[in-house]
């Protein structure tokens, strides 16, 4: 069965600092990979996705992620965080074929300090 690991439960960074959120997956074939963000009391919003091709993916709000097959990783990065980036971030993996169910990681809560 596929699985997703987000090893950091909570990360605190200063406004303006760089950010990297880690995501590792376990899946037998090339996966679909996603990062979603959830602001307090809200649903999930897609930040970016990887299906194939260029392994560096650009998303909304200045985020990017890099797919590294050798490390089974899909880490999310942002060069300079803003206070509005405080939220919970979820990595997810999907099947390449068949029904498009997503398996989610447990999430990383991001706190921004002034």
């Amino acid at each position, binding site marked *: 069965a596929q699985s997703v690991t987000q090893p950091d*439960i909570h990360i605190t960074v200063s406004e303006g600092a760089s950010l990297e959120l880690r995501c590792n997956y376990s899946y037998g074939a090339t996966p679909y990979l996603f990062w979603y963000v959830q602001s307090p009391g809200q649903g999930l*919003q*897609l930040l970016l996705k990887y299906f194939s091709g260029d392994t560096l993916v650009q998303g909304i709000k200045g985020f990017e992620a890099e797919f590294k097959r050798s490390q089974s990783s899909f880490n999310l990065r942002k060069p300079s965080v803003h206070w509005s980036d405080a939220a919970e971030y979820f990595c997810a993996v999907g099947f390449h074929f068949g029904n*498009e169910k997503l398996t989610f990681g447990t999430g990383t809560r991001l706190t921004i300090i002034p």
Partner: protein
Amino acid sequence: DVKVTQSSRYLVKRTGEKVFLECVQDMDHENMFWYRQDPGLGLRLIYFSYDVKMKEKGDIPEGYSVSREKKERFSLILESASTNQTSMYLCASSFSGLNTEAFFGQGTRLTVV
């Protein structure tokens, strides 16, 4: 814009009650999903549907059922609510096929007392 609408943001129900959570999408998506979100556990799939009247169990279907009579609507049913079903419930929908993404509703926070 894609819109996935969940009928209630907050619900409080009593133990043993039958509870209906409703979800409607306006993008003609084939797939619809119900997830449960709990702190430290992320999102866990309860049920999904890939077509009208079709459903498949997800990872945690016990205590839940679903109904999809129309393409745009997917209902989650708690036959007899229990306190351990207190949670945030998220509905999502997507197109079928490759290169699709899921769109989520705002969530329903259900408290069972």
